[in-house]
């Protein structure tokens, strides 16, 4: 086995580099310094009444003025930092701990406990925050401790709900089921399985909540039910300042600024922690100016033989030359599709096979102008029905394609909009593109559903996608791709989630639709057998490139296939005639990691026939004697006799 991600872990978790994190840390530093030193330095001064300086407006001596007892408001605000912060942190941690226990423990306690805890949490959540706070105040009497307890009680249920949502994901996971089956003790399940897997989002949420807690505590003090004199926090100062707002508005603004400053510091810290986690999980893509221009496929001009073919052949419906798709990655462009060239003739059904990560779906979605936002698609030539699509934005190119390209997606449950009726989703196309009226469009939608043999189509058109079975949804998607009478259908894994019997009906339907309408189709699948029955030609993709383009009939005689990968693919899966006494033919190793540049032939590492040339130079996809094209230095079809496709592994 080759280890495709050896070496140190890819994600770096160094010190935060985002400006927001730096600002947040600085702001918190200021707050902590104030909390530690302000009461020591100015504590006495802040509480000493001065009968000569009562309710003074701002001045050099008192930048924010003085209060009714002649105390300096600026100093009081600075000194109040400690109490305000300590209360907020204490309340949030208290709420966080209780919430975590309440929300996360049930994950290892069984379903009955889960249900019981869930209903406690949801009832607690239904308790209005204000009511909880007021009842606490009534029960314990107003004061600092009360305010902290009240806030902790109001925060607990939302932490509990978060912990519950996260831990129920862990609780329902197969790794926890496996641990239970292994007889791992409950305590260990909780400490090694549940807690580590929910800790990070909980910590982020707690951090952000400290800011909110600070605001809530100041609100309580503002209402007079929080901190009681002679103690004071920012909310208390604000409420006192509000009393003299007409004489000296600044008296209220000073503590107000402090509240906002601290609230902002914590929420920014939480935000940057969350961003840090996201980046560690997915890697932070470089910004465009560091990435440079998107890579373009470089290849020498076409060989004379090819030009000749291009002239003698009928005009292609789709002509793709040098298509590359790149995504911004943490270390530069990630290139899932590189230099892909092929043509589709009118009425032709072409299959595209490859493993996950081979770039087959990304290629087809890019051609349909449906590449995900952020993808950079480049091509030397991309023509549909004679019209050039290069140099246009995806939206413009999409408008050029219009309804001439119909797309069938993989997962029919997520591909249909859950909030709209199936009929409506079909009728949109004639409404928008055919200028049909509401009734006419609906009628067309019903007819399209009827065409794909959905029984009782008129009633079904009124239903929502979740009311359909999987096979029926997939047929509705085919109907949707057909309703605009396209000349090319692109189907991305159209039967992957379906049972074999349903799969066959869907495949037959697709084949029939093409036969009757004369539309061409590109069908993407990981299952070469599915494509064998459906298509006329096969494109084999490996690590972002087409490695073989071959007449599908050759699949039935694998010794005539040229690329070692195609040959292995056709032979590696057991079929109903496989010899049970021998081990299966397998391809050693794993596909390469495309986030790093691959030099030479990407398959070389797994190929028994690879030479040094293969490892340094990318083989070019060229015409081959079997009538198709191959990108391989050592095509195997000629040597079929001496290579003897035995039962040994194809690799070393």
């Amino acid at each position, binding site marked *: *086995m080759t*280890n*495709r*991600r*050896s070496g140190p*872990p890819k994600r770096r978790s160094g010190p935060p580099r985002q400006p927001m994190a730096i600002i947040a840390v600085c702001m918190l530093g200021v707050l902590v310094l104030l909390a530690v030193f302000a009461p020591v330095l100015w504590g006495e001064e802040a509480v000493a009444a001065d009968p000569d300086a009562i309710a003074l407006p701002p001045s050099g001596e008192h930048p924010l003025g003085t209060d009714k007892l002649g105390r300096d408001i600026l100093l009081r605000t600075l000194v109040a930092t400690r109490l305000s912060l300590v209360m907020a942190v204490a309340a949030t941690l208290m709420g966080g701990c209780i919430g975590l226990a309440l929300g996360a423990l049930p994950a290892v306690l069984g379903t009955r406990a889960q249900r019981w805890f869930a209903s406690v949490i949801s009832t607690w959540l239904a308790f209005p925050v204000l009511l909880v706070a007021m009842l606490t105040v009534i029960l314990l009497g107003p004061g600092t401790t009360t305010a902290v307890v009240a806030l902790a009680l109001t925060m607990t249920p939302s932490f509990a709900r978060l912990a519950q949502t996260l831990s129920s994901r862990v609780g329902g*996971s*197969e*790794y926890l*089921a*496996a*641990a239970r*089956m*292994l*007889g*791992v*003790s409950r305590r260990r399940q909780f400490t*090694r399985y549940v807690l*580590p*897997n929910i800790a990070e989002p909980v910590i982020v949420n707690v951090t952000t909540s400290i800011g909110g807690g600070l605001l809530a505590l100041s609100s309580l003090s503002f209402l007079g039910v929080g901190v009681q004199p002679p103690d004071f926090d920012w909310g208390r100062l604000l409420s006192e300042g509000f009393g003299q707002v007409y004489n000296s508005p600044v008296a209220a603004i000073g503590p107000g600024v402090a509240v906002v400053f601290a609230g902002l510091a914590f929420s920014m810290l939480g935000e940057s922690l969350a961003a840090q986690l996201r980046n560690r999980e997915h890697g932070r893509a470089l910004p465009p100016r560091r990435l440079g221009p998107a890579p373009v496929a470089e290849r020498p001009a076409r060989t004379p033989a090819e030009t000749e073919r291009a002239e003698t052949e009928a005009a292609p419906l789709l002509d793709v030359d040098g298509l590359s798709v790149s995504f911004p990655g943490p270390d530069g462009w990630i290139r899932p599709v590189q230099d892909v060239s092929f043509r589709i003739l009118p009425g032709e059904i072409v299959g595209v096979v490859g*493993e*996950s990560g081979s770039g087959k779906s990304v290629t087809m979605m890019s051609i349909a102008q449906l590449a995900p936002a952020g993808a950079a698609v480049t091509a030397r030539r991309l023509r549909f029905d004679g019209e050039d699509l290069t140099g246009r934005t995806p939206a413009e190119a999409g408008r050029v394609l219009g309804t001439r390209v119909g797309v069938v997606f993989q997962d029919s449950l997520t591909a249909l909009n859950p909030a709209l009726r199936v009929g409506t989703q079909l009728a949109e196309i004639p409404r928008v593109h055919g200028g049909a009226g509401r009734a006419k469009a609906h009628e067309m939608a019903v007819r399209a559903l009827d065409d794909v*043999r959905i029984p009782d189509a008129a009633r079904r058109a009124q239903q929502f996608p979740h009311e359909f079975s*999987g096979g029926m949804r997939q047929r509705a998607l085919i109907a949707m791709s057909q309703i605009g009478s396209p000349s090319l259908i692109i189907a991305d894994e159209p039967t992957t989630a379906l049972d*074999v*019997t349903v*799969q*066959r*009906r869907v*495949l*037959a*339907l697709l*084949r*029939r639709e093409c*036969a*009757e309408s004369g539309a061409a189709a590109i069908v993407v699948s*990981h*299952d*070469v*057998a*599915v494509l*064998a*029955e459906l298509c006329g030609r096969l494109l084999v993709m490996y690590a972002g490139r087409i490695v073989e383009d071959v007449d*599908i009939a*050759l*699949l*039935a005689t694998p010794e005539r296939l040229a690329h070692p990968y195609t040959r*292995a*693919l056709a032979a590696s899966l*057991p*079929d*109903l005639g*496989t010899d*049970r006494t021998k*081990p*299966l*033919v*397998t391809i050693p190793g*794993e*596909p390469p990691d495309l986030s790093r540049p691959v030099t030479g032939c990407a398959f070389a590492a797994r190929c028994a026939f690879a030479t040094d040339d293969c490892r340094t130079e990318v083989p070019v996809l060229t015409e081959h004697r079997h009538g198709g094209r191959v990108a391989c230095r050592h095509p195997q079809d000629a040597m079929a006799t001496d290579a003897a496709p035995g039962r040994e592994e194809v690799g070393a």
Partner: protein
Amino acid sequence: MAELVIEDLVVTFGHRHRAFNAVDGVSLTVPHGTIVGLVGESGSGKSTVARTVAGLQRATSGRITLDGDDLLRTRGVDRRRRARDVQMIFQDPYSSLNPRMTVGETIEEALTTHGDLDGRRRAASVRELLDLVRLKPAVAGQYPSQISGGMRQRVAIARCLAVRPRLIVADEITSALDASVQGAVLNLIRDLQRELELSMIFITHNLAAVRYIADTTVVMSRGRVVEHGDSEEIVANPRQPYTRALVSAIPRIEHAGTDHLLRFADEEGLR
């Protein structure tokens, strides 16, 4: 290794008028040291049978015994003893390993839960198990996110073998893997079964895979057993119409470049 007997197993989901039997009177036997394949389409109840045998799902009625020990009566049974009865390997290796534990820790945990080996012996056992599933010792230090799907599935198999269970339930263990990796995992299961004389229930929707790997095959549909018998025989000469439909629906490379699908469309009245 042991013999598993399932008698008239019923598993009901839902309540009152919405109740339905996901498993509706299933009986089957897994003899010592054999692999029994369980095939069927989604909703056939095959995975529910697997989860019930593994103790992850409560049975409504029926009996499951392993060498005469009742597996459904679990009250008071030590969790470690139970773990040695049945272990399950899950479909999706991306979700069956704890992302926060290294491969070594995962396998070690299975070892320590069942016997107090000292550190050196434990490390040696981990190496042995990794070797058994054809993984290099260096993999032990890696987290699941750092290795590929096929490797993860091997780790899951190693974890399961660490307990030395009397029966292994393998639930669609190849269907989440890439085509080029599936074959290697099937080979591994076959080799291990021969080396260690494992008893196994192998659940899949793939008739070709079950034919290749299982000694006998049970075909399920809508919670019931439709047909059972020798794996090769069932595929070659299916007796029940349902099994025949299932076998004939499998796409075949031999049909490459023919109008087979169009003929089927005609037969089905799709045209």
